């Protein structure tokens, strides 16, 4: 245990995003994998009350890569599925899949890896969820580490 811990400190792990739950292909995406995916830019008003640009990958693209029910498949019981977003500090926020799907909404929620063209600041990166158009940025959570897709069972 102690030797394992020492190793972890000497060789910091690479940050990654894990996608699991109601998926056909569980994913572990590192920064390099995210960089290779199609990026788009959205504008969001931050805690400072100012608008900032964020660039990243549409959540829908990540879910599709994992084989989550999106688009035409997002009907019937699949509309009772949710995405739980988990962060390094233990923070968790939830979305229904329809909130993130381009067949339901024009709003594009992204997993940002850049802001104003630069990497995200310490404490917020490497991956931040950016949810444009909300009155407060409480779901635009920092240091996202995990997406878990589940059925709501009640």
């Amino acid at each position, binding site marked *: 245990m102690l030797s394992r811990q020492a190793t*972890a*400190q000497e060789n*910091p792990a690479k*940050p990654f995003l894990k996608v699991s739950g109601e998926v056909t292909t569980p994913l572990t995406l590192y920064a390099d994998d995210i960089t290779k995916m199609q990026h788009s830019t959205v504008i969001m008003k931050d805690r400072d009350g100012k608008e900032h640009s964020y660039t990243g990958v549409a959540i829908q693209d990540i879910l599709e890569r994992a084989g989550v029910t999106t688009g035409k498949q997002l009907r019937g019981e699949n509309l009772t599925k949710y995405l739980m977003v988990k962060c*390094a*500090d*233990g923070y968790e926020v939830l979305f229904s899949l329809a909130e993130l799907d381009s067949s339901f909404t024009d709003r594009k929620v992204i997993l940002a890896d850049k802001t104003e063209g630069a990497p995200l600041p*310490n*404490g917020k990166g490497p991956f931040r969820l950016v949810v444009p158009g909300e009155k407060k940025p409480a779901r635009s959570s920092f*240091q996202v580490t995990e997406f878990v897709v589940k059925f709501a069972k009640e």
Partner: protein
Amino acid sequence: MSRMLQIICFIAVMVCLLSAGGKVYHTATPLKIIYPDYFGNRIMIPADNPTTSEGVYLGRMLFYEKALSANNKISCATCHQQSLAFTDGKAFSAGVDGTLQPRNTMSLANLLWVRHFFWDGRATSLEMQAATPLTNTHEMGQSLEVSANKLQKRYTPLFRNAFGSDSITGDKIVKALAQFERTLVSANSNYDKYLRGEYQPTASELHGIALFYSSPEPTRHSRGAGCGHCHGGPKTFSDLFHNNGLDIIPKDAGREKITGQAYDSGRFRVVLLRNIALTAPYMHDGRFTTLEEVVAHYNEHVAQSNTLSPFLQGNSNSVNGTSLDLNSQEKRDLIAFLHMLTDSSFIRDKRFSNPFLN
């Protein structure tokens, strides 16, 4: 053998089986843990360890059982004393071999809502947590197998009642301990009474509550301490990890030791504030001996680093201020609120006390 004799034998065998059934089948009584609605129901009870009256009773006995340590002198309750909200007043507790623990003993209360145990969150259930202090060489220092053997005979009826068979195993020991710990609900402080409309806080306490939950917004002339962001809600607990600015370079890397991620350096669990006035010294290394020192830390001494919580940055009650800048009256009021979280009935509750003394 006549047909009649066969029938009599069959009936006799059936009667024996049925009467043995009372012992073979598990009949422990389900126990519903009572807590206020305002705590919410996002609780954690593993499917393979439901809470029962018999399990909780056994767990309480084991919590106070010194035979679970290698030198028969230490029980869980040695470091987790009820009168101090299940802490021991020390920065670092000593184990059976006299070695001091690397981190401060955590208080025990409202564990039903905790998903990550220890300062670094490495255990994801109370069952997993309990096994560590029992077996760690520098804590109670005894394998679960040896503990199970030492409990034979004396504890057999209690294990039978709780788990339906006479076998005593390490798994059942940690399960019973976890069941007992889940019943440690603290929900009768003055703050609870205020939430239930049964207590009128003093002006200082009310101001403390307001400061606790408000973020500082100097441009709007709104003052606050911003504590609620991490410690907020009626439970005064969220399952979070933050670097709260104790050191520029942490001596103890905290959660980074578990995840290996640089961004977790110096991150520790955000603690429950219930009974906080009873659980000094404070922080993972027990560096602060009073709540005044704790508040002074957040007000004046937060150390900047790459992993400092974003929620402790840019928080000031002064325009362009570099520290929280509460005045001395505000600090006193905040501490008055923290004292409201002391639950004197919890620390005297007979259900949680040493059964060997009653």
